[in-house]
């Protein structure tokens, strides 16, 4: 049970003195009497991830404790939220750079095209971010079509200080993401050391009650041995008293 409770949140119900029922705190049966029910996994058709099933019921979202819940939370909440931030950043940069480039003229005198492959949507932007051109002459540096004009290049460079990503500039937005990761990790390890202290204290308390102290058992041993010796002395004195009495009667 101790091992099981490290994996998932377990509740135990003592049915009648002899049989035990174990369920997750969501109520999915794990052990009933002498029968056990395996948890199984199935591939989710939309996300492609594995869902946890008890019999035919999907219990993925109702698992609230243990390693399994931690892994699921990391997979379904923490990482997707970071991914979506990175996607927002990537699509914001790609779209603003493309828009600004389209406002100018390249070295051939043509209106600027896309510098980045245009993202099809926000989701997946970060992983699909790619530069669309290989010829530097296609960067629309010029704002008026003359080769020596650099006004659009300056505008492209200045995108870095403009609030093009959810009301923030790209640098601040990115540093916000990194701060979030660092903060989550540092909160988690602070939480971990707190919990570890708690576990240690509980284990100490458990051990204080149930642990075997050789000193105490030794003392008990001496005590019981003395009591035994004393009792047998009493018995032998009584026996000798009887003996004396019987001898007196006989005489």
């Amino acid at each position, binding site marked *: 049970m101790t091992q099981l409770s490290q994996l998932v949140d377990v509740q135990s119900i003592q049915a009648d003195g002899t049989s035990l029922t174990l369920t997750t705190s969501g109520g999915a049966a794990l052990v009933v009497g002498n029968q056990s029910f395996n948890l199984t996994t199935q591939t989710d058709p939309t996300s492609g991830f594995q869902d946890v099933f008890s019999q035919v019921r999907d219990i993925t979202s109702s698992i609230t404790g243990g390693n399994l819940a931690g892994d699921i939370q990391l997979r379904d909440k923490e990482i997707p939220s970071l991914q979506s931030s990175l996607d927002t950043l990537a699509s914001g940069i790609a779209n603003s750079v493309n828009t600004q480039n389209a406002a100018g003229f390249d070295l051939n005198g043509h209106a600027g095209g896309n510098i980045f492959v245009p993202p099809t949507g926000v989701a997946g932007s970060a992983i699909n971010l790619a530069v669309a051109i290989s010829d530097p002459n296609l960067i629309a540096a010029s704002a008026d079509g003359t080769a020596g004009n650099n006004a659009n290049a300056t505008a492209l460079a200045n995108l870095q200080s403009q609030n093009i990503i959810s009301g923030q500039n790209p640098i601040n937005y990115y540093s916000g993401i*990194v701060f979030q990761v660092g903060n989550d990790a540092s909160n988690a390890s602070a939480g971990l050391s707190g919990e570890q202290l708690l576990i240690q204290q509980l284990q100490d308390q458990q051990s204080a009650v149930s642990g075997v102290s050789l000193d105490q058992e030794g003392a008990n041993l001496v005590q019981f041995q003395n009591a035994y010796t004393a009792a047998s002395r009493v018995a032998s004195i009584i026996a000798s008293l009887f003996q004396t009495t019987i001898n007196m009667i006989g005489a």
Partner: protein
Amino acid sequence: MTVRVSPNIVPDTLSGLNGLKQQLNTADLELASGRSINSPSDNPSGIAALIVNHAAQSATDTFERNIGNLQSTLQIADSALNSAVGVINQAISLGVQAGNSSLSAGDRQAIAQQLQGIQQQLVSIANTRSGGTYLFAGTQVETQPFTLNSSSGSGVNYNGNSSVTQVEIANGQSVNINVPGDQLFLNPAGSLLGSINQLITAVQTNTGIPAASDALGQAASEFDTQRSFYGTALNQLQSTGTFLSSQNLQLTSQENNIDAADIAKVTTTFSQAEVAYTALLEAEGKVLSLPNLISFLQ
């Protein structure tokens, strides 16, 4: 009654050793890298500040590179215009010489030919290139700005434009980096190429030579005024460059303030943890080998 103490001290010791080992590892990593932030969780707000700091550093580096490139281009332009001054002075003295009424027609013709040579030199100076682009063509940098054309009043055609390019050399600070060729060589307040052409015609026809010479003198002083832009711009680049390198130093020291490991402090932490680790091991060894009551009950 006494409080019962857990007789099993091993778990406590192990967790103590574990904690100390972690302190040793952290201190070791900081000493090895020289940085107090080795992952975002070491100092989340510090890492956010570092990212902003690095962005500012790379922007400053780019500005410094821009200034370096501009300085070499502007120096080429400045020295080209400087060499024009000597040529112009030669033209002025030729004009004075041609005004001498005792000269023969053949002498004037010879002077006119010299002046034409000077005209060509000035046009080739006006067509100076650097890195494959024309320096005095406005923003039409890929088109040769001046071509000789004897039927034009100024003797040349200008194929550039009158635009000025601005380059950002520090946050929010831009400089103009060129004077368009028409403003330098065909300025309405005194057209250098125009007055040379008129002087040539005057000498060839022997009419109005003094007036043409005067006009050339006036054009030469206008040219001096226009070309002084390059000296001023170079000075400005110089001083902004100095400002940027001091800003870069500041950013670097700010970066160190954020994430440089305090070596003295880390070393102290390291040796403290080391002593504690050894002490704990020794104490544990002694406690575990202590005799208990049973040992004495024989």
